[in-house]
C-alpha cells in the first residue's frame, strides 16, 4: 500500500472543486424534481385529457416540451457536466482551474433554462424536439455551456500524467462537442431554418447526437471511472475501449433517422440510420464487457451503475430490433417509442449519473451521505419506478401499435385498451418523483452536515479507507 500522503482518497482537488460541483449537482437535482412534477402532469393528461386543459400554460403539448427540456437541459446537463468536471479533475491530478467560470456558467445556464421554460409555457416554443427553448435563450445556452466546460478542458490539457483513461476521453468529448452540436442545430433550425422536411431531418440528427455524443459520453465518463475505482481491478478487454469510443462518436449521430421510417424522406435516410444502429452494437458490447465488473460487487453506486449499464445495453438492442421496418410498423409513433426513450434517458443515462453522484458526493463533502435509509429508499423507488415506467409504456405502446394497424379499431376503443397501462405509467412517475425527492432531501442534509462542521475537520479521514494500488491483470 502506498503512503497515505500521496494517495489520500480525498484530495485538494476535491476540496477545491467542492462548491462549484455541488452547485452543479444541486441545480441538476432541483430540475429533476421539477421535471418529475411536470412528467406526472403530462402522464395524467394522457388518460384524463381534461386535466389542467383550461390552462394554456399546461396544455399537453407544452407540458411535454417542458418535461423534456427540464429533464435533458436541467437535470442531465447539470449532473453530467458536474460528473465530467469531477472525473477530469481527479484524473488530471491537480485542483480544477477556472472554477469561477464554471460557477458563472452554471448560474447563467440555469437562468437560461428558467427563461426558456417560461418561454415554452407562454407560447414561444420552437416545436423542435429537444430544441424547444425559444431562440432568445439559445445563444445564452451556448455561452454558458462553454463557460461551464472550460475547467474540464483545462484539467485535461494540464493533466499530470501523460497517459489517458477512457473516462477522460468521454468527458472531454461531451464537453467539447456539445457546443458545436447546439450551434449547428440552432443555425439550421432557429436562425436560418432549412426548408420543409429537412427541419425534421436536422432535428432528428440533433436529438440523436444529444444522446450519443453528449449524454451517453457524460454518463460513461462517470461509469468508466467509478467501476475500476471501486473494484480495484483494471477493466477487462480494455484494449477495445478506444475503438468502442470512436465507433460511438462517428456512427452514433447517424442512427437518428430511424424515427422517420415510412416518413416523407428519401428511403436512404432511415436505411442509413438502421445500419448505424447495428454498427453501434459493437460500442455497446465493448462497454458491457469493459464494465462487467460492476455486477460482481455490491454498494450504492454499483446498484445504480449495474442497472444503468443493463438499461444502456438493453436499450441499444431494442433500438436495433425496432429499427427493422417490420417492427417499426408496430412501434413507431406509439408509447413504445416513448418507452425506449425513457429506457435510454432514465434507465440508462440517469441511473449511471446517480451512481457516479453517489460515489462522488462523499469525496466532495468530505463526509458520508447523511442518511443510509434515504439512500436505500431512493435506490428501491427509482429502480422500481423505472422498471414499471418502461414496462407499462412498452405494453401500452405494443397494444396501441397493433390497434393502430387495424383500421377497424376506432380511437375511442384504442384509448380504452391502453388506459389501464397509462394509469400504471402515472403510478410509475409518482414513484420516481417520490424517490427523487428522497435523493434531494438526502443531498441537502449531506451538504448541510458538511457545512456545519469546522472546515479543518474535513475530510472526515477516519471514514475513508486509503486505497491501494490497482491490480493489473496478468497478461
Amino acid at each position, binding site marked *: 500500500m502506498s503512503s497515505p500522503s500521496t494517495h489520500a482518497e480525498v484530495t485538494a482537488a476535491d476540496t477545491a472543486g467542492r462548491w462549484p460541483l455541488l452547485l452543479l449537482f444541486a441545480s441538476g437535482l432541483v430540475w429533476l424534481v421539477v421535471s418529475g412534477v411536470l412528467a406526472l402532469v403530462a402522464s395524467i393528461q394522457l388518460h384524463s385529457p381534461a386535466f389542467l386543459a383550461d390552462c*394554456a400554460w399546461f396544455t399537453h403539448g407544452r407540458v411535454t416540451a417542458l418535461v423534456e427540456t427540464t429533464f435533458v437541459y436541467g437535470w442531465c446537463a447539470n449532473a453530467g457536466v458536474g460528473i465530467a468536471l469531477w472525473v477530469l479533475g481527479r484524473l488530471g491530478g491537480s485542483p480544477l482551474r477556472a472554477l469561477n467560470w464554471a460557477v458563472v456558467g452554471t448560474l447563467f445556464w440555469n437562468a437560461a433554462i428558467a427563461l426558456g421554460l417560461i418561454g415554452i409555457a407562454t407560447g414561444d416554443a420552437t416545436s423542435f424536439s429537444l430544441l424547444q427553448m425559444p431562440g432568445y435563450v439559445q445563444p445564452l445556452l451556448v455561452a454558458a455551456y462553454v463557460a461551464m466546460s472550460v475547467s474540464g478542458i483545462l484539467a485535461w490539457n494540464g493533466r499530470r500524467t501523460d497517459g489517458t483513461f477512457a473516462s477522460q476521453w468521454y468527458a472531454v468529448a461531451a464537453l467539447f462537442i456539445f457546443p458545436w452540436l447546439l450551434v449547428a442545430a440552432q443555425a439550421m433550425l432557429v436562425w436560418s431554418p432549412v426548408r420543409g422536411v429537412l427541419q425534421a431531418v436536422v432535428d432528428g440528427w440533433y436529438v440523436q447526437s444529444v444522446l450519443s455524443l453528449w449524454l451517453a459520453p457524460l454518463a460513461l465518463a462517470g461509469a468508466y471511472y467509478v467501476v475500476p475505482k471501486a473494484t480495484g481491478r483494471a477493466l477487462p478487454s480494455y484494449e477495445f475501449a478506444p475503438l468502442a469510443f470512436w465507433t460511438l462518436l462517428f456512427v452514433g449521430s447517424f442512427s437518428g433517422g430511424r424515427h422517420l421510417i415510412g416518413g416523407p424522406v428519401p428511403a436512404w435516410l432511415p436505411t442509413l440510420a438502421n445500419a448505424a444502429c447495428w454498427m453501434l452494437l459493437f460500442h455497446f458490447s465493448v462497454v458491457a464487457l469493459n464494465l462487467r465488473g460492476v455486477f460482481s460487487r455490491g454498494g450504492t453506486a454499483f446498484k445504480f451503475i449495474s442497472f444503468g449499464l443493463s438499461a444502456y445495453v438493453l436499450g441499444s438492442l431494442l433500438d436495433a430490433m425496432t429499427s427493422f421496418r417490420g417492427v417499426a410498423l408496430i412501434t413507431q409513433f406509439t408509447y413504445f417509442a416513448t418507452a425506449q426513450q425513457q429506457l435510454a434517458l432514465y434507465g440508462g443515462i440517469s441511473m449511471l449519473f446517480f451512481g457516479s453522484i453517489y460515489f462522488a458526493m462523499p469525496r466532495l463533502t468530505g463526509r458520508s451521505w447523511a442518511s443510509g435509509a434515504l439512500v436505500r429508499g431512493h435506490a428501491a423507488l427509482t429502480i422500481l419506478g423505472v422498471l414499471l415506467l418502461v414496462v407499462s409504456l412498452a405494453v401500452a405502446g405494443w397494444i396501441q401499435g397493433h390497434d393502430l394497424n387495424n383500421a377497424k379499431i376506432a380511437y375511442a376503443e384504442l384509448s380504452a385498451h391502453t388506459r389501464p397501462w397509462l394509469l400504471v405509467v402515472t403510478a410509475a412517475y409518482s414513484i420516481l418523483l417520490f424517490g427523487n425527492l428522497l435523493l434531494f432531501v438526502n443531498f441537502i442534509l449531506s451538504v448541510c452536515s458538511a457545512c456545519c462542521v469546522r472546515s479543518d475537520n474535513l475530510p472526515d479521514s477516519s471514514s475513508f479507507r486509503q486505497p491501494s494500488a490497482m491490480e493489473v491483470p496478468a497478461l
Partner: protein
Amino acid sequence: MMKNGFLFFAGLFAAFAFGWAGIALGSHRQLGALAPYHDDSEGSSFPSRPPGLAARGQLVYADLGCASCHTQQVRRPDFGSDKDRGWGERQSVARDYIYQVRPQLGNSRTGPDLANLSGRKAPFDAAELTVFLYTGILPGGKVLSHPPFKFLFDDAVVVGETSAYALVLPPSLAPAAGRQIVPTERARTLVSYLQSLNTPYEFPEARPVTPAVAQKEGAHK
C-alpha cells in the same frame, strides 16, 4: 491519438462534422432546392402555398405543441393502416412540405394523423372544428376525446347582436343566458390552418411501387 492533444480534438471535431455532413448537409443537398411539381395536364403546380391565415395558424399549432400527439405524415398504403383509416390515399413526400414554414411531422399518434385532415372523405367543416376545439367532444359524440382548449375562446357578454363567430353549442355546454363563446383570433387561425391541411395531388415519387418492379427487386436479393 488519445495522448496527442491536437489529434484528439481534431478527431472529436471530425466525429461531429462527419455526422453533420452526412445527414444534415447530405439531405440538404438533395432536398434543399426541391421545386414544386408542374403538371401540364392540370396546368398548375403542386403543392400550392397555404393561405396567409393558415400559415399563421401553423404557428399556433406549433406553440401549443399539437405535434406531441398528432403526426402529419401519411405512410404508404402497404405500410400500416393509414390509407384504411382514411388519413390519405398516398404517402406523404418531401415535396408536400416545401411551402410550410414549420412542418409539423410529429412522432406520436396518440391522436390521428392530420396531414390530410380536410382532404378526407367526410371532412369536418370550420364550425365543427371550432366547436371541437372548445368542447373536446367529436361531432355527434358524447365523451371527451381531446383536451378542451377553452383558453382559445372568450366567454363574453352579448352586447347588441350576437357575434357572427359565436359558437353554436349543444344545450348542455351552452353558455349562460346573455353570454356567448367567441373564438379568439388564435382559434380562428388554427381552424383555418387545419382546414388547409390536404394533399390532393399525387406526385410521381409518391405513387406506389408497382408489383412488377417489386418483383424485379425480389430477384435482386
